[in-house]
């Protein structure tokens, strides 16, 4: 072993991701070879720059993203000179010179100075409030601005710009993204995927101005606005420039090293001066520069190899893939996807699921892929792309991914099973499936953090976390229960619907503020999406105990009528099973005349709708309808709406059972119940199905030998036939199954999730098992529904028309006679 005195001196300029990864790799290969000194302008240890976006978005803290703390440098006998910038490389004396004038000699030098954000040369670019997005300092300034100011403009609709915009938005700023072109992330996305991305970001509140060219930044002492080439202006208290990066090679160039768009290096990562190496964003290799960590880490490995004097590795360039780190948006892009005469494309677009996939083939090989909404197969395509696999034999089914090619089942887990050991799981760190599996088995790893620590997989950008969890699950089998990837309930929280429902029960939470406090809601009173959801969850969890929060109800449910476009309401009395009487019809006619109700219409649910009722008339209208024995039809409710029936055996020559009677029985049992979304039923007296039962949430088709129960149909925005659940022999069994099914849906459905979507998510078999096969469970579900009905079955109309409930709701606060 070499002793300290004779050790060679390695100096590293740039305490960033590529430089330190090289040092780490070097220590693995040759721990004692060098006396290492690292200079870094930033006053920190080495941190994960990629995760600045989640820090900005408030999802992580600066401490969370530290990769190498100051202790790590000490433990490895590395001299860290943080906060010190190198201003000159003296190649003659082999020394570097710091800003303060100190000279430090080197035997080998590694330049890893990264890059700088491009600041467009616009008038006003130096005003306070105009910043780039590159380091902790920038993020601090953005966070500060978000507390002091309101309007932010982000120039640049690429990866970095969108992540900055997302973060600022999460911090409460109004953000406009300005982009020169008309497709977002045009280097990674085609126009369709770019459009989908734009749409979902717009849904979250992001505003886009594109195509638009910025002409000037306005303001005197601080930025106040931005002007565009078309003459329009936007107010801005903060302008983030995210139009690209420029390799930081000034220092190298001044020292006489050959530079073009970056410091030019050979396949061994050496500059034109053999003693000086360079890695990272500051280099240009085979005419390419890179702005993602995966290729930089490849470079780091090669460079470390040479520094360790095991000079056999060479760097041949990298193919990169990209994911956007905006929570809740799944996006994957790799390779070359520009259309061309010699290319073929396979496109799958499923607007309902928000899924778009485009695979580009050339000479029977995948050359590019853009995935939106469902990115589980990203690594699989990427693997074939890099391997240059001939995919012609699976061309037809290629777009459906690994699972559909017999390379696995349908779930993500089996598609992991289908991957070869060489499939890369973590793109940033180049970790393939085999390495993860080996680490898990050899080192007895059980958690994601273990895997991160041992393999580095999932430790950089985090996009592959889901896949790594699946590899864990697949390797450990039943021992591992990873939380599946979940979408947050709404923008006010990171928690999913399921989390919220579970925590309400576990923590015994009984009010909306209590839930928000316990689950650390990000907004003061939530919003129009989460409040009604929480109100429903509490109501469904604590029947008889929870006091319905009227202010968290959508207006229709608050006033028990449907708001119309002119602010008037529509009133639909219940007609059990669609059956009415002359006296009911007379009463409806009288009411319509008495209150000048402009439109009387028959609905699709076999009842009568009175449209155009003024809000202040509602209680009186209800009183008259109540007098004739009619109650609310809950036509406005996320609850039981209608039970549509046909005339069945009582009149119809084909009728096999009393479908009308059964429908009325079901409706009388279930009316008044609240559900995650509306529930519509149908009962047909024979398979001719005149009540259209097989496109309802729950439908019964009577047959000679009994009753077929179907569910999970839809005939609205989406059209879907029902699934067959089971067949029973008696009316009572039929009621029991339907009620139990509805109760299960009430307990598990996400707010606004229709029954068919719930069934899609949970699985038909799962539901059948609990509602049909497990009789005990069915009876328990039935009992819980019945219990909660005693609190629900009170006519909201008569409460308001007669008992003065919510009187204030229907009268103005004051009438002013001002001129």
């Amino acid at each position, binding site marked *: 072993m070499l002793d300290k005195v004779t050790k060679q001196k390695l100096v590293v300029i740039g305490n960033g991701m590529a430089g330190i990864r090289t040092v780490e790799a070097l220590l693995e290969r040759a721990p004692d070879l060098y006396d290492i000194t690292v200079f870094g302008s930033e006053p920190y240890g080495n941190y994960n720059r990629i995760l600045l976006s989640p820090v900005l978005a408030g999802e992580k803290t600066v401490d969370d993203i530290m990769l190498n703390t100051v202790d790590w440098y000490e433990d490895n006998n590395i001299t860290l000179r943080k906060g010190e910038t190198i201003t000159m490389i003296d190649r003659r004396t082999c020394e570097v010179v710091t800003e303060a004038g100190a000279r430090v000699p080197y035997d080998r030098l590694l330049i890893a100075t990264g890059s700088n954000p491009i600041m467009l040369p616009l008038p006003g670019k130096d005003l306070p409030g105009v910043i780039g997005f590159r380091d902790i300092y920038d993020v601090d300034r953005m966070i500060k601005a978000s507390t002091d100011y309101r309007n932010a403009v982000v120039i640049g609709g690429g990866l970095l710009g969108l992540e900055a915009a997302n973060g600022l938005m999460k911090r409460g700023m*109004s*953000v*406009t993204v300005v982009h020169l072109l008309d497709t977002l992330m045009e280097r990674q996305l085609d126009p369709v995927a770019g459009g989908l991305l734009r749409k979902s970001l*717009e849904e979250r*509140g*992001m*505003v886009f101005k594109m195509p638009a060219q910025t002409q000037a930044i306005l303001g005197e002492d601080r930025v106040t606005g931005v002007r565009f080439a078309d003459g329009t202006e936007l107010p801005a208290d903060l302008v983030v420039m995210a139009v690209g990066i420029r390799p930081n090679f000034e220092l190298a160039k001044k020292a006489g090293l050959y530079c073009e768009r970056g410091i030019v290096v050979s396949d061994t990562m050496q500059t034109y001066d053999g003693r000086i190496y360079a890695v990272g964003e500051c280099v240009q290799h085979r005419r390419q520069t890179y702005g993602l960590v995966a290729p930089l880490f490849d470079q780091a490995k090669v460079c470390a190899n040479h520094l360790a004097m095991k000079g056999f590795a060479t760097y041949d360039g990298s193919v990169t893939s990209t994911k956007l780190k905006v929570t809740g948006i799944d996006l994957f892009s790799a390779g070359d996807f520009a259309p061309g005469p010699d290319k073929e494309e396979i496109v799958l677009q499923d607007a309902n699921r928000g899924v778009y996939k485009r695979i580009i083939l050339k000479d029977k090989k995948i050359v590019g892929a853009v995935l939106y909404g469902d990115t589980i197969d990203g690594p699989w395509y990427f693997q074939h792309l890099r391997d240059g696999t001939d995919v012609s034999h699976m061309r037809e089914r290629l777009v459906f991914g690994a699972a559909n090619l017999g390379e696995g089942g349908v779930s993500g887990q089996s598609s992991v099973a289908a991957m070869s050991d060489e499939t890369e799981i973590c793109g940033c760190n180049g970790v393939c499936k085999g390495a993860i599996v080996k680490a898990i088995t050899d080192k007895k790893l059980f958690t994601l953090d273990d895997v991160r620590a041992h393999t580095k997989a999932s430790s950089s950008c985090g996009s592959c976390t889901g896949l790594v969890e699946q590899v864990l699950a697949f390797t450990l089998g039943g021992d591992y229960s990873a939380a599946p990837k979940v979408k947050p309930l709404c923008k006010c929280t990171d928690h999913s619907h399921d989390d919220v429902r579970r925590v309400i029960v576990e923590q015994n939470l009984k009010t909306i503020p209590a839930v928000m406090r316990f689950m650390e809601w990000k*907004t*003061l*009173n*939530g*919003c*129009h999406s989460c*409040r*009604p959801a929480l109100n429903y969850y509490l109501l469904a969890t604590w029947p008889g105990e929870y006091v319905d929060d*009227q*202010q*968290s*109800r*959508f*207006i*229709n449910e*608050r*006033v028990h009528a449907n*708001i119309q*476009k*002119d*602010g008037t309401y529509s009133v639909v009395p219940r007609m059990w099973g669609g059956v009415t009487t002359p006296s009911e019809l007379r009463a409806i006619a009288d009411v319509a005349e008495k209150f000048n109700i402009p439109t009387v219409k028959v609905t699709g649910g076999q009842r009568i709708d009175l449209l155009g009722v003024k809000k202040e008339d509602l209680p009186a209208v209800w009183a008259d309808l109540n007098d004739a024995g009619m109650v609310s039809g809950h036509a406005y409710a996320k609850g039981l709406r209608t039970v549509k029936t046909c005339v069945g055996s009582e009149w119809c020559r084909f009728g096999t059972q009393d479908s009308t009677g059964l429908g009325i029985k079901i409706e009388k049992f279930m009316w008044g119940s609240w559900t995650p979304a509306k529930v519509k039923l149908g009962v047909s007296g024979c398979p001719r199905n005149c009540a259209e039962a097989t496109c309802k949430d729950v439908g019964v088709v009577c047959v000679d030998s009994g009753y077929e129960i179907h569910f999970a149909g839809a005939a609205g925005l989406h059209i879907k036939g029902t699934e067959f659940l089971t067949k029973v022999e008696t009316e009572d069994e039929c009621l029991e199954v339907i009620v139990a099914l509805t109760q299960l849906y009430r307990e598990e459905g996400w707010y606004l999730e229709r029954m068919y979507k719930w069934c899609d998510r949970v699985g038909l078999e799962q539901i059948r098992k609990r509602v049909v096969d497990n009789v005990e469970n069915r009876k328990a579900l039935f009992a819980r529904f019945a219990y909660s009905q005693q609190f629900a079955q009170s006519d909201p109309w008569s409460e308001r028309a007669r008992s003065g409930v919510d009187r*204030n709701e229907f009268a*103005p*606060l*004051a*009438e*002013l*006679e*001002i*001129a």
Partner: protein
Amino acid sequence: MTGWIEIGALDDIPRLGSRVVRTPHGNIAVFRTESDEVFALDDRCPHKGGPLSQGIVHNKRVTCPLHNFVIELASGQAVAPDEGCTHTHPAKVENGVVWLSVRQAVPVS
């Protein structure tokens, strides 16, 4: 602009709710936040005239019941990405009584 007019008791407006004041020039929605601040806006959404008084109130914003525009109670401004502005009127609470001063809309030229 009128002087301050007494329009009712704070307790007659539900927390995180709203009541309507009728005027010859149209309805004004008076909102009460969780912390008992009051705000008054024309009861017309800048989008398609929806009655804002019927929306869900959260923090100092209301969501229009018709198509979910979110309006800032203090400024009447629609929250991005939506655009538009609803006319506001000064309102205040003193000793549990709500006061309103009606500001005539300035015709847009």
